[in-house]
């Protein structure tokens, strides 16, 4: 779709939330990990809540299952398409349930429990009309690696 085009010069809507292309060539979500406490976080906080030591950045992968989704039909914020979809995804790695955008072009295919995978594209703006990259989940085509 036109609004989700590849655009390497467009900045992310926030630093440290995703990488566009990990070693496997796919976009990955980033979070935080405290090795001492074996705790994962999304998004990455400054300190581990258990030991108050700094939390290191960690790869939360690219796959998950759609726990819930809905379609926002009112006039959208941040230059999003109308309508757009959001949901919660249970990540295949690490056990976290994360709030996320869901592919607005595939709303009709969404069902609770389906496997989904991460994409990154030009999606909405910064609130002042400047395009931004955002992560979103779409129904999986590559199969979920557990």
């Amino acid at each position, binding site marked *: 779709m036109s609004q989700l085009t590849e655009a390497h010069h467009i900045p992310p809507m926030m630093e440290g939330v995703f990488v566009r292309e990990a070693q496997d060539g796919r976009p990955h979500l980033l979070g935080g990990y405290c090795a001492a406490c074996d705790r994962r976080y999304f998004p990455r906080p400054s300190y581990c809540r258990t030991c108050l030591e700094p939390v290191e950045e960690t790869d939360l992968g690219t796959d998950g299952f759609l726990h*819930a989704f*809905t379609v926002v039909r009112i006039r959208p*914020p941040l230059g999003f398409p109308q309508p757009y979809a959001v949901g919660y995804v249970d990540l295949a790695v690490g056990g976290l*349930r994360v709030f996320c955008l869901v592919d607005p072009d595939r709303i009709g295919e969404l069902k609770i429990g389906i496997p989904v995978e991460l994409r990154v594209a030009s999606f909405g703006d910064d609130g002042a009309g400047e395009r931004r990259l955002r992560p979103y989940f779409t129904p999986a085509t590559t199969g979920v690696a557990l």
Partner: protein
Amino acid sequence: MNQVSIVGVGMIPFGRHPERSLVSMAAEAARAALRDAKVEPSEVGAGFFSNGLAARLFSDHTIGQNVFWEVGINRIPVYNIENACTSASTAFCLAWSQVAAGQVDVAMVVGAEKMYVPELGLIHSGQSELDTQLGLVAPAGFALRAKRHMAEFGTTEAQLAAVAVKNRRHAGLNPYAQFREPITLEDVIAAPMIVDPLTRLQCCPNADGAAAVVLAGPGFVASRRGGEAAGRAIRVHAAVYCTGSYENPQDLTNWETDERGCRLAYETAGMGPENLDVVECHDAFTISEILHYEALGLCPVGEGGRLVESGETSLGGRIPVNPSGGLLSRGHPPGATGAAQLFEIVTQLRGEAGSRQVEGARVGLAHCMGGDKAADSKSCTVVIMSR
């Protein structure tokens, strides 16, 4: 700790008040509460003013001093409180703690909001938060909960809509409510879809409004014994405020914070849901009231949709919820809502609620919730009162 009583309440009708300033609305509610309590301005030892949006909408700050000055109260400590939807009830919990500790004999809470302005836009949990940047507008978080509740417990669109119909029917009996024309299940379901499955009539409307509460300790209440004011005093058995756990993963069919807040309030009061005669809860969306039934223990987990459908939470039912019309029909000015809920419960427990009176109401509960962080609520307040 000292026994705290509510000795006065006041509010203005919620609605569109484009000609009114925030301070003038707040002052009118404050004056009404002082008159109701038969308390002189000089007797108030601490003032708490709550507001959610004026800093953003009007660049106004430290408004409480202006409000209390308008009703003859100065020199005393005045606190300005912002806590999203629970701003006023959080202010009440703070005021309660000062009176309970004996720090002041009389404290006063005034909550006000002016939000019918073009600048308002969509309500969210904070512009710089990740969830907001990923499109979490306020109704979406509740819609996702509705979808999970429907999937896990078979809650239906008609049951969701029944909350809006019931609260509108109640609002028709409340001169302080903004929307009072009756609506049907068909009206609610056919209204424009906001966020699936919540239609416009399932989302609380904006409002301009103000409400105020006067609290007093045992010394003050005793000094007025025999007087009309003391006879109408309402005892506070619990005033609990807690914040979220934000643990991951969260169960979307309840808020852990909601359950914990209700449980703490019951423990503090030495009461349970079976003791309640009337409840005001934070029905920001239809699904919210259903989830709060379950957190409050008014029905088993998963049964909230069937409870509203049964009529047990309607006026005349086993445990009437939101006899005022709730946020859904009264309107939701975040800075004032918590105080308006207390106004309603106090009015009910005094037996002064007119055609919406819950017959023989002796024990009441006011419940409020606000903010969103990591799929949890940022705040929950629960106040249990009796006459």
